[in-house]
Structures are given as C-alpha cells and as structure tokens.
C-alpha cells in the first residue's frame, strides 16, 4: 500500500517532468532555426492573431506580409542608401487580445530590438499597439486597423494605408444610387465594437444626406452566436437594402439567418466578410449577389514599381498560394511596400528618419496611392465594392474600374 504522501510526491515529480519536457521541446524547436541577425537583413516585427476570434483575418494578414517578404527577397531584397538588404519578419501570436498585442509589440521593440513594426490585425489591437510604438518612437504601418479613433490621439508614429472605417459601406450606397428602380429603404445591423460602430455611423450619415430612408438600425453584441431575432425584426420592415457592419463570422450568421427566415432584400452587403475566400466556400450559391466593401480588388488598375500592377500581384499571389488574394492580403503586402519605400526614401535605418519619410511619402502602389495626412491616415484611397457573381468576386464600383454590372435586384433565395 502506497501512502497518500508518497503518491503525491510521485505525481508531483511526474508533473514536473512533463512540464520540463514540454518546455524543453518547445524551446529546442525554437532555438535551432534562430541565427544571429546579420547586418544585411532588415527585420520587421508583427504581433498577429494566430488564435482567437480574429485568427482567420490574422492569417490573411500574415499571408500578405509573407508574400511581400518572399517576393522582394527573391528579387534580391530592398535597397537602402545604395546597399541591398534581405528582409525578415518576426511574428508573435497575440491570441486576438489587444493587451497581448501591446505586450508583444513592446517585446518586439525592447527585447528583439526591432525598429519597424507592422500592425496587428484589427482596430482594437492596433489601438493598443499604437500606444507602445509611440512611447518608443518606432514607426508602425497599419494595413487593417481602420477605426479613426486610433488617429485622433495626436500620435506621430502610426500610419494607416487603408481607407477609414466610415467609408467601408459608402460605395454600396453609391452603387444603389445608380440603380433603377432606385432602392430607398435601408436596414443597418452593427456589431457593438469600435470599428463596426464607426462603419455604421459613416453609412448612416451618408444615407441621411443622400435620400435614403433608414427603417431599421440595431447593434448586436460583438461575439454574438445568434442573430435570428434581429432578422425577424428586419423582415417586418422589408427594407430594400440590408447592410451589416461587423466581421466575417457575423456576416455568415446574418446570411444564414436571412435565408432561414426568407428575408428578401434587393441589396445585401457587409463591411467585412464577402471579400474573404471563406465567405464563398461557407455559403456556396447563397453567397451570390452579396456585396462587400473592399479596400482593394483584383480589378483595380493601380500600378507600382514592386509588383507591377494589381493584376500582376494577383497572378503571382495565385501562383504561390493557389487562391485569389483578398483585400486583407493586398493591404498587408502594400503596408510592407510602403515601409520599404520609406526606408529607401530615408536612406537610413534610423526609426526617426524612417518615420519622417513615411510622413512625407507620396507613392503609387498596386494597392492605390499612398500619402498620409498629419494624423497618419491615407488621404488618397477610395473604397471599392465587390459583388459575388456565379461564385466569383467581381468589382462593381467604382465605375471606371468595374469589370461587371451589379446584379440587381437580388434573385429570390434558392435561385442565387
């Protein structure tokens, strides 16, 4: 008979052993590939969502960063003050938690000695990270934190290349104004988080000023799992247009609930969701006809010195990953490209000088023109509108870049 004390001691030893083994295994795996930072490598740092609620968007962001890194390294690297540098990116997982993002950005700067930060995914995380980059006076280029609140704090080291949140859904109403018979009534569903409320606020102001009639507005909790009751209310109002301001998971929930309840509008669109490949694979034919605000589409005609054009970026991306790039991919690659342009312009690896170069930047990229106002917001870039037609993303707005006519009104459920 073994005494309770002995058993406890043995279990304790066992546990200690397992813990040590796990820690050593994880450590060993990580130590091997680490090499001393060579002086001909410029390392960027990013804390991204590999796990948690934004894991999918975080993965798309990382893909965009990595695609740029691999592409420019294959071309020999980037040139700063006449010297060619290879580029590398150090990543951490922020578990979709803004506080962890801030912590890891501080780690990147103070522990890993990284001078150039690529922003995390999403407004909340970027918001948290911006306070850290500001403290250490390290520039951060932000491809997908669109809430303007980030830029209203008087910071000088955060630069967003994307259009601000309030513009996300405006394009869809601009399209609607061109359609006959013109849709008028509007329902807006918004997740109760900073980014989504800014998006909704922007579109509601635009609707009011442009002769749309808002018949329904509601906010829902950002981590909601059920929107059925919301759609019941929407159905009673029978709006011409339904706009959802949230994230990918919300847009899928709303689409499924709308189908379950047979909510039939003439237009349905989302701020985030339709542009991702997952939207089409999850919904199948039901995805057809859905519009989405897009920071970038493959049909846009912008050109640049790195990738050549939006089309060439698309082709290269597709060859490498076997899927069309969505706008998260593109804006993330463009953020890297913006950083590289600022480094070249500064002709120096000093973060302060690179920051000044970013502030004065005025360049063309495959993603669009990039020039920042004094807050660090890109002043040039318009949003596009995509619509899914026959299972493919088509650009329907702006008119001069459109490669398809809007499918209007939406066919009934079951015939999409």
């Amino acid at each position: 008979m073994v005494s309770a004390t002995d058993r406890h001691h043995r279990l304790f030893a066992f546990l200690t052993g397992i813990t040590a083994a796990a820690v050593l295994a994880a450590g060993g795996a990580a130590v091997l590939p680490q090499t001393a930072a060579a002086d001909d490598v410029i390392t960027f740092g990013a804390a991204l969502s590999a796990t948690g609620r934004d894991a999918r968007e975080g993965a798309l962001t990382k893909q965009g960063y990595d695609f740029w890194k691999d592409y420019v390294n294959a071309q020999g690297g980037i040139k700063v003050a006449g010297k060619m540098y290879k580029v590398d990116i150090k990543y951490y997982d922020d578990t979709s938690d803004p506080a962890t993002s801030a912590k890891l950005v501080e780690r990147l700067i103070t522990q890993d000695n990284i001078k150039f930060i690529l922003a995390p995914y999403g407004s909340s995380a970027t918001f948290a990270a911006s306070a850290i980059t500001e403290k250490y006076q390290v520039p951060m280029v932000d491809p997908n934190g669109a809430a303007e609140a980030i830029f209203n704090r008087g910071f000088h080291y955060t630069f967003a290349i994307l259009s601000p949140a309030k513009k996300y859904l405006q394009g869809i109403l601009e399209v609607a104004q061109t359609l006959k018979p013109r849709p008028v009534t509007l329902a807006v569903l918004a997740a109760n988080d900073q980014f989504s409320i800014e998006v909704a606020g922007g579109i509601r102001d635009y609707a009011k000023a442009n002769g749309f009639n808002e018949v329904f507005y509601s906010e829902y909790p950002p981590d909601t799992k059920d929107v059925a009751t919301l759609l019941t209310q929407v159905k009673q109002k029978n709006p011409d247009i339904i706009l959802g301001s949230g994230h990918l998971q919300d847009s899928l929930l709303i689409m499924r609930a709308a189908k379950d309840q047979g909510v039939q509008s003439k237009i349905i669109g989302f701020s985030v969701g339709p542009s991702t490949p997952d939207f089409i694979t999850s919904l199948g034919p039901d995805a057809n006809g859905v519009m989405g605000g897009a920071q970038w589409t493959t049909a846009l005609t912008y050109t640049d010195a790195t990738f050549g054009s939006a089309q060439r970026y698309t082709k290269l991306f597709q060859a490498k990953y076997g899927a069309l790039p969505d706008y998260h991919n593109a804006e993330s690659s463009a953020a890297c490209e913006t950083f590289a342009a600022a480094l070249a312009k500064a002709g120096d690896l000093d973060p302060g000088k690179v920051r000044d170069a970013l502030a004065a930047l005025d360049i063309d990229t495959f993603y669009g023109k990039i020039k920042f106002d004094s807050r660090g917001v890109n002043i040039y870039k318009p949003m596009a509108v995509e619509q899914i037609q026959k299972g493919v993303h088509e650009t329907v707005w702006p008119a001069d870049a459109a490669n398809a006519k809007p499918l209007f009104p939406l066919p009934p459920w079951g015939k999409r």
Partner: protein
Amino acid sequence: MQAGRRLAYGALVVLALSALLPPHLNGNWVHVLTLFFMMSSLAQAWNLIGGFAGYASFGNVTFFGVGAYACAYAMNALHWPFATAFLLAVVAGAALAAVLGWPILRLRGHYFAIATLGIAIGMQALVAELPPLGKGSGMTLPINSNFHFFYWSMLGILMASIALTAFIAQSRFGYALVAIRENEEAAAVLGINAARAKVFAWSLSAAITGAAGATYAYWTSFIDPPTVFDLNFNVLMIIMTLLGGAGSIVGPTLGAFILSAIGEYLGAQSVSPWHTVVLGAIIVLVVVLLPRGLMPYLTGNLRAFNLNALRAQLRASRV
C-alpha cells in the same frame, strides 16, 4: 500555517526588492513582470473568497471591469487625477460586491458559481449599452508612458494583497472563513455570522480586483467591454490559485508565477496555435494531479487536511 506565513514574509521581501528592478530591465521585462503582478493580485484576491471561504466565484472579473471603467470614467469624463480615480475604483468594486454578495452569497456550490458567471456576462452586456461609458466602442484614458509607474503600482497592489491575506489567515475572521468552507452549518452553530463574513471577504476580494482593473485601464489607456470583462481573466485567477494552493497565503502568487513563466516561454516561441494547446494540457494535468496545489509541498504541510492535524492546529492557534 506557520510555514505558510514564513513563506509569505519571504515572498514580501523578494517582491519589495523587485521594486529596484525597473531601471535595470528593458521594456519587455517590465511589461511581463507588471502583468505577472497584476495576475498575482487577481489570484490573491480570488483566494480570499474562493480559497478561504470556499465560494468559487466565476464573477470576480466583474470587479476588474468595474474598476477599470470607474477609473476611465473618473479620469476621462470627470478629469480626476489617477489617485482619486483609483480610490473610486476600489470603493466601486467593494461596494458592488457587498450589494451583489448579500443575495448571491446565500447560494452554495454550483449555484453560486453559475450566478457569479451570470453577473460577469450581464455586467459586460450592460456596460456595452451605456452611452456615458462609450458603449461597445470603449473608452480612452490619458496617456502615461511612464511604464515603471504601473510596475510599481501593480507591485504595491500585490504586496498589499499578500500582507492582507497573511493578516487574515491568522485572524478570527480568517478562521471563520475556513470554518464556513469546511462546514457552514457548523460554523453558524459556533456563532459565526456566515453571511457577514462572506460578504466582507468578497468585498475585500473585489476591492483588490478593482484596484488592479483601474491600474490596468490607465496602463493600456484604452478599454472596451470584451477586454476588461474577459472571462479568461477569471479562469486564470482560479487556475493560478488552484495550482499554487487554494486557501494558502502566497499559493496564488506562486501559481501565477509558474503559469506566467510557462505562458511567457511558450508564447514567445512561435506563432503556431500549439502554445495555447500545450498550456491547456499543463493546466489539465495540474488540476487532475495536484488537487491541493503546490503549497503543501513547500510548507511540508501535506497532511493539513487530515482531520487530526487540523484539530491540533486549531488547538494550537487557540481560537
């Protein structure tokens, strides 16, 4: 308990010395230690109600969120300095626990756990609907880039919570809580006002938690409901306390130290989701294999739950 108290004094000395560290550390380590002090404080606070009184609160994160919002509102809307905003957060946390505790602490076991979980979720939803608190958009606070200040603040909260626990552990109040945990009816027969003791314990717990929440809000300078009412905080408080030893004096801090160290080590290695899986597996093993935590191994007090030993202890302590 003697060995436990000696350990507590030792821990306080080590922590006091760690106040000298910030000028010698880079920002990363200051950040990591500040978070460790914060999580330790939360676990120490949870231990008062969950470890001593045996009431497993899944709602302590409510007081973290309320403290954070009280501080944010006081600084942002009322333009109070941090010191007074901090005091408001402490009072708000304690008062809320007293008001909620009076009805809720009559529930036992699972019922109490579920009720507190409901409060945490409900409070997050409520705050997300209140316009003066910024609804779902959250609130910003004035920026203070002196991160050493937050290091010392969190350290101060932690040391205060350990000192408080050490004091409670040898007080009549502490023994009353343990008696309630072991047998509430018997405690009542002994003349212990169980309701009052439990409410007081939860209020102390909430005051510490609110203090940490207020400091956290000022530190990150931006809060929103999902961040400060994050149930993960609550789960971590419980696991850290269980790992170190529920009902001990510095067990929660020991548990927080081990979990933070492992999490820090694994999280720093890669972006793969495996670090969370490994951390999860370690947590499962701890709970299964060490139901009483690590403290008994350090204090040589392995038989503390042995009834005879407990009786001898009680006799020795002349309660």
